[in-house]
């Protein structure tokens, strides 16, 4: 495992060196944005690195540096979901009760077509039926052995505004607060989250320093060792 970590570490330092060149567009250094250590992300990347030509679905707010990071580190295909734009638009134009149906229609990805899903904290912004509909679609889209990484707030996070996750390296994520008309809908118990992702199993679960729960799910059925 230490060899794999070394591989990740080498690749991330190479990426930093690449970013230093003028054509690379480094993330503007944010002042005062919280960075969290993410062990789940490291595991997720190790898993993705073990797949040949992996396909990654990123549902978080679009971040150019994240796309560059994942692409260079994994040599993967990144599908940009940026669900927040659509959730916000839906909230403006349609009743919340229709969000679940909207998300079910929105995710028409072929069954077992992605190796990994970065869900970030999208579920915190969804009502329960919508989160359930999204979870069902993602479970369907994941390939056997696929991985899904999600962050889930708790009661103290309900009033925290919209946050964008920007990956700094294989185990650190910086949280960028953004002005957006999106409110967190509440928080879920662990058992409800696990139930929601029926068909996946919790591979790793961590409580971050800021109180967020970080959960790495895996889809069974591939007959390969799990990280």
């Amino acid at each position, binding site marked *: *495992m230490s060899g794999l970590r070394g591989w990740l570490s080498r690749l991330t330092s190479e990426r930093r060196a690449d970013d230093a060149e003028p054509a690379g567009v480094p993330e503007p250094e944010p002042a005062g944005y919280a960075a969290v250590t993410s062990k789940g992300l490291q595991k997720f990347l190790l898993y993705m690195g073990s797949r*040949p030509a992996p396909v990654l679905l990123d549902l978080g707010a679009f971040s150019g540096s994240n796309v560059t990071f994942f692409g*260079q580190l994994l*040599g993967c295909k990144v599908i940009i979901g940026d669900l927040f734009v659509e959730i916000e638009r839906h909230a403006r134009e349609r009743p919340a009760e229709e969000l679940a149906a909207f998300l079910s229609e929105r995710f028409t990805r072929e069954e077992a077509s992605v190796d990994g899903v970065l869900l970030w904290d999208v579920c915190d912004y969804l009502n329960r039926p919508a989160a359930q509909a999204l979870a069902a679609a993602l479970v369907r889209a994941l390939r056997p052995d696929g991985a899904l990484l999600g962050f889930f707030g708790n009661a103290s996070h309900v009033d925290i505004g919209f946050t964008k996750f920007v990956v700094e390296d294989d185990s650190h994520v910086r949280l960028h607060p953004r002005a957006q008309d999106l409110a967190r809908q509440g928080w879920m118990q662990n058992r409800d989250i696990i139930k929601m992702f029926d068909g996946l199993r919790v591979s790793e679960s961590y409580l971050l320093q800021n109180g967020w729960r970080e959960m790495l799910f895996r889809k069974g059925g591939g007959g390969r060792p799990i*990280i």
Partner: protein
Amino acid sequence: MDKEAFNVGKSVVFKGELSGSEDIFIEGSIEGKVELRDHVLTIGPNAKVKAEVIAKNVIVRGEVVGNITATEKLDIRDSGSVDGDISAPVVAIAEGAHLRGSVDMQKKPAVTAAPAQAAKPDAKLAPLPTGSPAPGSQRAPGA
């Protein structure tokens, strides 16, 4: 680089297939296909390109609707907007840039003398052993 490039000016509206053997800087509107296999294509901040784009290096500072293939590098600057799928071995995207689609940075199999034999993609890592959370991490309650 821009000084030597062929310039498609702001007032130019072009429909069709544009190809060439020199660098091109687009500031106008292009619809169709742009192909510069061995050269640099720069899409300027005022440009509107609705086309399939293929070039060695692509720099996007304006608006592109269509798929982009860069055989060497794609660079989307903060004023750039791409609505389409991207394929390039190296991609740099500035914060503030807009992108809707997918980004394919998968390593393409090398072209061999026997193309009928499909090259197996290289797995970077062997299957991974079962692991546990690193020391010092806290388990979420109930998980």
